[in-house]
């Protein structure tokens, strides 16, 4: 029962949604209604998954505080900031939507934006050190990757045109043009093969989930 029922549910919902793709839904009422209803439910289920996540997070940090773990001061930071922002977001929002909640917008602009944007911009420094450290032309493959990266990096920025004139590479041999060619031809060819491969992979996995062959998502591991 514990595995039979979920597998049947995955089968029924999966087959119907795949079948609904082939149907002109506007003309067939029962398909359209059921299709919209299942869509609607998935949107709401995503919210419960989030609540599960935040719940486990808070429990884990509460455990750290209880065990007097050395970094428990930081666990306080997590718990207090989660509850504070959730309180402002959930309880200080009057009326129908969070858009009008000035405090929430202030928290977003002055905490969420700097923290996540700065984390991201660290990458500019890491890219530089990764490029320096790892970009060694050890073999033909690495050399190709290196040359293509350098041309695209130079070709796609204004200074590329300035350098090309300097080396009087003009017309379709200027750096911007070569960069464009690399993006249009070899990049497209390789990415098309990868996209096709992944498309087949995604389809196979989805089919196996629906027919109950692939059950990892249910935690049976087999």
């Amino acid at each position, binding site marked *: 029962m514990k595995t039979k029922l979920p597998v049947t549910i995955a089968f029924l919902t*999966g087959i119907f949604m795949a079948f609904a793709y082939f149907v002109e839904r506007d003309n067939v009422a029962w398909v359209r209604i059921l299709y919209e209803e299942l869509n609607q439910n998935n949107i709401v289920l995503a919210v419960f998954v989030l609540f599960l996540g935040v719940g486990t997070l808070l429990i884990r940090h509460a455990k750290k505080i209880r065990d007097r773990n050395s970094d428990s001061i930081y666990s306080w930071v997590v718990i207090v900031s989660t509850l504070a922002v959730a309180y402002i977001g959930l309880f200080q*929002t009057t009326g129908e939507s969070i858009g009008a909640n000035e405090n929430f917008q202030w928290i977003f602009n002055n905490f969420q934006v700097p923290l996540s944007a700065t984390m991201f911009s660290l990458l500019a420094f890491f890219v530089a050190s990764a490029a320096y450290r790892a970009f060694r032309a050890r073999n033909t493959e690495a050399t190709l*990757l290196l040359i293509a990266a350098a041309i695209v990096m130079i070709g796609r920025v204004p200074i590329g045109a300035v350098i090309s004139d300097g080396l009087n590479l003009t017309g379709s041999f200027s750096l911007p043009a070569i960069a464009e060619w690399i993006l249009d031809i070899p990049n497209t060819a390789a990415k098309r*093969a990868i996209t096709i491969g992944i498309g087949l992979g995604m389809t196979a996995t*989805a089919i196996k989930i629906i027919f109950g062959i692939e059950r990892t998502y249910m935690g049976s591991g087999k």
Partner: protein
Amino acid sequence: MILNLIAPFNTTEGLGIWIAAFLTLCIFSFLYKDNPFYKFAEHLFVGVSSGYYISIYYWNTLKPNMIDELTKGFTALGKGDMQKAFGLDESGAVMAEPHLRMLVPLMLGIFILLIFISRKNAWLSRISFAWYIGVASGIAIPTAMSTRVLLQAQGSIRDFCSYNADCAVSAGLEPQVATTALWINAFLLLIGTLSALAYFFFSLPSKGALKVMNKVGIYFLMISFGASFGYTVMARISLLIGRLQFLFYDWLGITIS
């Protein structure tokens, strides 16, 4: 370049900018080495984003789609109008607003949260995951096959059609004059796609012709990864520029002449 520290502490806007600048410098301090300021910002980030998502998910999805619908359903039930309670109109046809039909996702949602409460019947959450992933897989099958496989294959064949006058006309493409450059490109595109596709072929050992194609395939793959790397370097630097524009213009109030 005029330097004036614009942000006084008393205005909420000014205080906000000082906090944002402080947090920005806390994260940048990781470049020197891991330190308490970075650890503080790291954990603050985990907390603030959790609180942020709970609020956004609640107001934008949970409340309008479930809570409002259920309250409308129960009020209708209170008035004894069974049909309206379950989102059916007078003739019994199913209406768009689900009302009490939202009890189904509510039940599935509670099953998910059971994982907290009791280890024993946590298995019920499998039903919700099965439903959620069943719907997602059902939608994915036909569209993944059509958009990622068929339309891509169509894209690579269509180039050859546009070089051939009558094929282009019947396929509704504007015929292109086949210059040698176009020929080389079309040929390279085909060779690149076929050899890269062969690289992901696992059933045969890579010997003989397949070995050659694997080699050519990995060359095309590496050039395309190089292009992506180059493009990504551009992206990272523009984000750093975004932060520096904030620090110099908004915080330090520098205006460039």
